[in-house]
């Protein structure tokens, strides 16, 4: 599993980092910590970064916290492989620099400049990420680094799954909303891992609208329920009207992780306006997992 953690300097990013650490502790994921600085003319021709920038400092803190949490003996992240490597510099030159890598897995720390959601999505694509994690504020305004658009755009446009961590609370229940004609194997495996890691209950919710798509949703509900049951995961399943479900998730406790699939064959995409996902992300009071 490859995880891209898009971080800013706000407290919710520190909470989201805990989720990343917990995932990495169990999965040995390759992890990239990323911040995006606004495009600045000063940075274009100057190779050095502003060391006092809050995001630059925060990234260093996150790296230290990650390695303090996971860098001990028998850890795949413990820094023990020293070697000289040719590191590319600007203008087509390289420098032979001594670097220290993790025993089996690396934690990369990167900074990009430019538009935040574009750069996060570009990094995820370039790195082959399977999951993007970003913290964001709670409530109707789901904000990342002072931008309400970033979490929604990342969730709506990423090619991989996205976890929006809104709460610093343990995940006790995963509400997986089924609206799909087809569900990827990868997304089922992601649910497996999260149920296993958090010891969470799994509840499948087949979403319908005015009775629409009920048979398709019901069929998928049974099939996916069978998949998890075969894996030994206890699962509850039910159908719910989308409008009622939306009111439930807007008032829930914060210990739920609301997961839903978003792909090319989403019934929601067919039935509901395209911006439903973005509204859903904002409405939901607890953390959200967009599966692909």
């Amino acid at each position, binding site marked *: 599993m490859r995880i891209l953690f898009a971080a800013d300097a706000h407290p919710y990013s520190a909470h989201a980092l805990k989720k990343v650490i917990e995932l990495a502790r169990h999965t040995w994921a390759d992890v990239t910590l990323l911040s995006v600085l606004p495009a600045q003319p000063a940075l274009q021709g100057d190779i050095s970064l502003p060391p006092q920038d809050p995001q630059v400092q925060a990234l260093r803190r996150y790296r230290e916290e990650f390695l303090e949490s996971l860098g001990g003996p*028998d850890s795949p992240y413990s820094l023990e492989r020293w070697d000289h490597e040719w590191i590319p510099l600007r203008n087509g030159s390289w420098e032979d620099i001594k670097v220290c890598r993790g025993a089996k897995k690396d934690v990369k720390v990167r900074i990009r400049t430019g538009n935040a959601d574009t750069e996060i999505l570009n990094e995820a694509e370039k790195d082959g990420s399977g999951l993007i994690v970003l913290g964001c504020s709670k409530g109707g305004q789901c904000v990342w680094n002072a931008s309400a658009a970033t979490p929604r755009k990342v969730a709506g446009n990423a090619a991989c799954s996205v976890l929006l961590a809104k709460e610093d609370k343990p995940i006790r229940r995963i509400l997986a909303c089924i609206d799909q004609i087809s569900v990827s194997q990868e997304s089922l495996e992601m649910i497996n891992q999260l149920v296993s890691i958090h010891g969470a209950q799994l509840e499948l919710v087949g979403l319908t609208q005015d009775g629409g798509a009920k048979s398709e949703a019901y069929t998928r509900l049974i099939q996916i329920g069978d998949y998890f049951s075969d894996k030994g995961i206890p699962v509850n399943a039910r159908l719910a009207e989308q409008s009622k479900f939306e009111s439930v998730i807007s008032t829930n406790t914060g210990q739920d992780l609301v997961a839903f699939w978003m792909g090319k064959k989403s019934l929601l995409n067919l039935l509901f306006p395209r911006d439903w996902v973005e509204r859903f992300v904002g409405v939901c009071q607890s953390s959200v997992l967009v599966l692909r």
Partner: protein
Amino acid sequence: MTSDQKTTILLLDDEPIVCKRLKPSLEKAGYDVEAFTKSRDAMHRLTEKQFDIAITDLKMDGMDGMAFLTEVKKRHPATEVIVITGFATMETARESYQKGVFDFVAKPFKLGEILEVVKKAEAKLGHVATRPN
């Protein structure tokens, strides 16, 4: 091993879809792959042949991946074992590490990710081969 010999891989996962997805990708990348969905069949094959690399799922009926890892390392210490799992836990990750696993890859993973790990295992084994892109 000569440069024209293919690196051999034993693939064990009780989910047929995983073998179906991984085997052709690894073969396309130039590896000689034998895939199994039952650990007893894979174990039996190990009595007949030493593989360069073994890729095994962790949670399976019958002999699980951890026991399989132990058996592979006991029988063929030079074989590099890559564990893949859909139910990762800190304990299984640590136990795999202590038993000499080469790497531990949690599902879901992209094909490029597993290929990268296989290439690293191959490099550790000292196998240098030209692979198709």
